[in-house]
């Protein structure tokens, strides 16, 4: 299993944990990306810090890719998205549009994503986040098995 990368996964996970810790202890905010992204439009009066957070996130990804080229995608360029499975006959742009739509809609209605529920919520011992995490992980595993996208 050459693709198994426990060391960088643990290090990267610790950085993500540190990111959520800094935002919680500093500003009392949950670092849930779907929430930060999804409330960029009014009526939220808190647009500025959300924008600052997201710009820093992209900039740091860019910087990390310059410092450690090849790490982010295990040696390949990380600049590729998954293509729609050939057997489905769906063009990739349509596939990605549906996936994006479901991701935005689902995280809004379910009030969180991998970071908000999966990291922050579980660390706060929230029952809602435990349920949400089990559901989206389980459904994602089933979806990958059904679509055969990898």
């Amino acid at each position, binding site marked *: 299993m050459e693709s198994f990368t426990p060391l960088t996964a643990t290090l990267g996970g610790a950085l993500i944990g540190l990111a959520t*810790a800094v935002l*919680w202890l500093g500003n009392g905010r949950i670092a849930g990306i779907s929430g930060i992204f999804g409330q960029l439009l009014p009526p939220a009066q808190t647009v500025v*810090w959300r924008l600052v957070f997201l710009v820093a996130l992209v900039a740091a990804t860019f910087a990390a890719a310059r410092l450690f080229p090849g790490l982010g995608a295990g040696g390949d360029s990380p600049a590729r998205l998954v293509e729609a499975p050939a057997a489905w006959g769906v063009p990739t742009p349509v*596939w990605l549009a549906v996936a994006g739509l479901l991701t935005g809609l689902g995280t809004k209605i379910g009030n969180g994503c*991998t970071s908000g529920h999966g990291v922050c919520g579980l660390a706060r011992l929230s029952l809602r986040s435990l349920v949400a995490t089990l559901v989206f992980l389980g459904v994602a595993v089933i979806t990958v098995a059904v679509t055969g996208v990898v």
Partner: protein
Amino acid sequence: MANLKLPYLATAALSGALFGAGLYVSQMVDPLKVLRFLAIPAGGWDPSLAFVMGAALIVMFIAVQLGKRRSAPLFDVAFHEPEYRKVDRRLVGGAALFGIGWGMAGICPGPAISLIAFLPDNLWIFLVAMFAGSLAGSVVIPSGHARRLADAQ
């Protein structure tokens, strides 16, 4: 406004930067890596992302415990706890829809944003669709603290 002061915004920038670096180092920015983690029933399962979540959880759990000793965070008057408390159909239904989207593309919202650093083909389609989906979801779940509190009762 506490949330326009420099320490508050610097904290947001530091958190975002750590988050972006973590997504890259852990390889969660790679949709294929994510899908190989989700492809449990297939051969050659890659369990790496369980280590990402585990490590992040341990660090954040400690931070939450530290936060409990304080009445407020460093740069705001209160911790912003989520408004919703009950496990309901919207939580489960929303998580299920997100699970389908995540399983189709291997891109959850954090990596979707961090991938902007590489400008991959078609990423804009995913981002626009994600934003549209989030907007559509505000019909069901309102935006803004006061509206959410009222909605959660």
